[in-house]
């Protein structure tokens, strides 16, 4: 019933789609609803984009790791970078707070991660990197409203 994977890739924006795709495949065995899948993909996309954009400023060199575990219908995913880190984590979590308004970042990343998952833990050391750990529980399977 359980499974785990690790994906590691470099800080290039084309890997955002790759990371979403991998994580969608990883939860396929859970048979999520369309809504659950699309919210989960959004959560992954936010965390991975942050690592690429904020952690490494898209340098194409820095390594990002995604470690994912499935235990029954619960997914725990950590997104790890070794980039610039976050000085003030509670400020970073505030809706609309962004350090890159000039790149049209909306400051909604952490708000979306929190709204679309059950738990978001942020562990960061300035100039050493950031680990964001997300927990999402999927509702028990029902015959209706499943992806086919």
């Amino acid at each position, binding site marked *: 019933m359980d499974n785990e994977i690790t994906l590691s890739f470099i800080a290039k924006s084309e890997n955002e789609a790759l990371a979403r795709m991998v994580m969608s495949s990883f939860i396929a065995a859970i048979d999520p609803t369309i809504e659950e899948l699309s919210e989960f993909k959004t959560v992954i996309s*936010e965390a991975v984009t942050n690592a690429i954009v904020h952690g490494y400023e898209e340098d194409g060199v820095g390594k990002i790791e995604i470690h994912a575990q499935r235990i029954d219908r619960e997914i725990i995913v950590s997104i790890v970078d070794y980039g610039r880190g976050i000085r003030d984590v509670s400020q970073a979590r505030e809706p609309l707070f962004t350090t890159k308004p000039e790149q049209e*970042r*909306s400051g909604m990343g952490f708000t979306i991660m929190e709204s679309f998952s059950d738990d978001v833990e942020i562990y960061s050391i300035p100039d050493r990197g950031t680990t964001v750990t997300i927990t999402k529980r999927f509702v028990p399977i029902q015959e209706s409203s499943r992806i086919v």
Partner: protein
Amino acid sequence: MIHEVERVGEEIIIIRLKGELDHHSTTDIRNEIVPLIKNGSIKVLVWNLKDLNFMDSSGIGLILGRMRELAPIEGQTIIVNPSPTMKKIFQFAGLSPYIYNESEIEIMSKLGGIVYGQ
């Protein structure tokens, strides 16, 4: 991702997004739309998300950015056909008031009234 940007008259642009809108893909679409708005005469931007399969907060940034450019000329932003997940994302960002439940055609017929003052 191939988007469709249709200009209706001098004042309306319809942007039909397709595929997945993330940080990677916003760059292209931004480069395409910004010059059109900077040109001056645009009063209404319609974002049709019918064929968009995915959007994260980069979409919020893209739409808010264009709203800011339209603000000086009191331009209008209209969002149609967001998925349930996109609706929630717009809601978190305070963009719900810009979502319309009408079809593109219905919007256009109403806009005739607004834009041309009929």
